[in-house]
């Protein structure tokens, strides 16, 4: 296991894990290849993401990308959030091996699904 300290920190202490009772949008996406799943619950008000929570099933990068993503998008406008790339998430984590980068892709896909809703 050669994960960065940031990665291990997110894994040990995930941020924003759980559900959002007053969510205005919920999106859930699955990676068909390995079955990883990410669920994002957002409360958007006046075009701003007031609060974000996540649930995740899958290998550690999936859990960590969920944690990192929700931390990033809180307080952003929809447009700002929509501009976050896979690479940005990967860089925030301190890098990911190529074969684990699908986790970042899943995070972005789930985010876009949430932003496109409503």
């Amino acid at each position, binding site marked *: 296991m050669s994960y960065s300290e940031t990665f291990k920190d997110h894994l040990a202490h995930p941020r924003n894990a759980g559900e959002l009772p007053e969510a205005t949008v919920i999106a859930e996406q699955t990676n068909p290849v390995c079955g990883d799943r990410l669920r994002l619950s957002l409360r958007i008000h006046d075009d701003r993401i007031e609060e974000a929570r996540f649930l995740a099933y899958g290998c*550690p990068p999936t859990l960590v990308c969920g944690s990192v993503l929700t931390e990033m998008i809180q307080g952003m406008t929809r447009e700002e959030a929509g501009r976050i790339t896979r690479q940005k998430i990967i860089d925030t984590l301190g890098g990911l091996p190529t074969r684990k980068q699908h986790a970042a892709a899943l995070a972005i896909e789930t985010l876009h699904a949430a932003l496109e809703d409503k």
Partner: protein
Amino acid sequence: MRRVYLDHSATTPVDRRVLEAMLPFLTEKFGNASSVHFFGQEARAAVDRARRDVAALIGARAGEIVFLSGGTEANNLAVRGIAELAAPSGRHIIASAIEHPSTRGVCEALEKRGWEITWLPVYEEGLVRVEDVRAALRPHTVLITVMLANNEIGTIQPVAEIGALVREERERGRRHLFLHTDAVQALGRMPVDVEVLGCDLLSMSAHKLNGPKGVGALYVRRGVHLAPQNIGGHQERQRRAGTEAVPLIVGFGAAAALARQELNERMQHLARLRDRFEAGLTARIEEVVFNGSRASRLPHLSNISFRYIEGEGLLINLDMQGVAVSTGSACSSGSLEASPVIRALGRSDELARGSIRFSFGKETTDDEIDYVLEILPRTVENLRRLSPLYLEATGRRAGERDGTVLAR
């Protein structure tokens, strides 16, 4: 941080007594066992002693032991060695669906070259059925390879019954049918006797029984011929060329002697710890599934699927708390598919991904079991609370904002 090693199926620590036996051969007794002079003869005598000790562990004759580099090489030599010589008589092999990747790999390579392989199902219990072997036999079958005990789930296969079947076939006049069994995981954890098993070939590895890595052996029954795979030298009666790895072989011999002397004691210790662990686990954690027959398996191993969570996540969280185990999840092995062994039991992808193998050793203590039982339930629960699958299945609310996965 406290470290608890529960991955003895992957490898075991070298016993102190084994290390002591090896040291002289890494220092002053450095001769090449094939040299005629004193230094060589000293090394030769040590190799012979080790050969007798390894043979005694399985009820074989010393001359039937071929030393090589490990279990993988033994499996390669057994399957390829027979295939090359027996090909004129037929090109069909019967193997279980849960063989070690080394055996599986060789069979698949032969398949690409036109060989026919029948993979025996293992059903939910993880056991092959002798009737299936009987039904799969053809006039052109030359090899049956069924591991004595599986490395992931520990189930013990009916090799002796298959041996009896092979004997029957021979009595009926069949001349080119051989039985190989991979005993790498079984050795040192159950009694192994080649006469009882009726096998022609048997694979062994030292580092699974508190010996060093880099050495193993293939048992080859007297009268059975193989095509050597490492050639260009006379060593091991021309069955495996290359200067004998004297220190490693000596270590293997010492480990084998200890395993034989201490077998009953070890088996009892392992079974007791494992059973305590499983009882403690089921009392504290819900929605777990045991993989493989609990009646017919090695005493040191527990393979368990934890519903709703993924194995590598659990593995790393346990690792961060000092506990070392392994998982059947694909993420961890680098392949795209979850453990073929767990899938062969009929388990879903999700259960295969959520499987963890806990394997105990002679060094494992009750205290260590207590520690794991203390942290495991909370670690599992924390991962479940993160999981949308758990939410879906139980309708439970995962309320906390900053869920902490490490047990407090």
